């Protein structure tokens, strides 16, 4: 990719990121139900993070090794969350009721 294309691409991504950041704030003023609000806000954040990772950090052009390096912490994060669940359930029956 030549430098002009790269700069234009960065400008476009920047504009999208600003719009998404403002829309995330805007969502909170819609007074949606708690779950919908939180899911929407995190969905916007995930899209923003994906754009930064793949476009700004150029992850899209990295090799398999980098992808493996990046997958490992997310797997560890998943294991961590699973390990937390018994503790959380122990402290709050209400927490269980939200799922069952």
């Amino acid at each position, binding site marked *: 990719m030549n430098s002009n294309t790269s700069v234009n691409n960065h400008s476009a991504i920047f504009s999208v990121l600003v719009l998404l950041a403002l829309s995330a704030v805007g969502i909170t003023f819609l007074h949606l139900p708690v779950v919908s609000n939180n899911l929407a806000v995190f969905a916007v954040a995930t899209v923003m*993070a994906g754009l930064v990772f793949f476009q700004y950090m150029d992850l899209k052009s990295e090799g398999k090794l980098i992808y493996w390096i990046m997958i490992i912490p997310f797997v560890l994060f998943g294991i961590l969350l699973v390990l937390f669940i018994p503790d959380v359930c122990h402290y709050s029956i209400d927490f269980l009721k939200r799922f069952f």
Partner: protein
Amino acid sequence: MEKSASLPLTQAYPTNEGPCGHNSSPAGLTAGRLGIWALIASEIVLFAGLFGSFILMRMINPQWAEEVSHLNLKAGTLNSLVLLISNFFMMKASSSVTAGKANDVKKYLFLTMVMGVLFLCVKAFEYTAEFAHGEYPTSGGFWAFYFLMTGIHATHIIGGLVAMGLLWVRAVKGTLGPMQGRVALTGIYWSFVEVVWIFLFPMLYLLA
């Protein structure tokens, strides 16, 4: 507009990231690139642990919603925009290295640092207001998480500013050439710091 001067060593050192900048791994990655991604992976473990703990603690402490209402949403939104602009300037600096525009590298590195410092100033303003309202890290679980997570993030901002400062000084002296690849590596790190804020901001300020 005056045309930017070319970096003196751009052609001679097309992918140089300093003394370890040669292709040194079987995967054809430079040591610097491999190192920065490994650093980011370890940072993800750190922040994911904090985020996971916070989300689960938030779920079992619905009363934290009251604490959230004491945060300054306008300041948080401003900081999000400041960091987005800062990262955009960093990407421009990185592109300028590729294009061999030495003056633009200096300019955009400086602007990135200015926005980074502005982010810290807004954060300091927020901390001051929170301290004035009697909210300290010892004031409760929410505030302990808030100050810990934003404090660690601010520390990463300071680290990025130091790295950028060193590159900027070299750029001003005209000695960036042998280490120009480090601008892109610093850009990757700076983008990661932005990703952390992209999740930190909604978690602290926007969750219902």
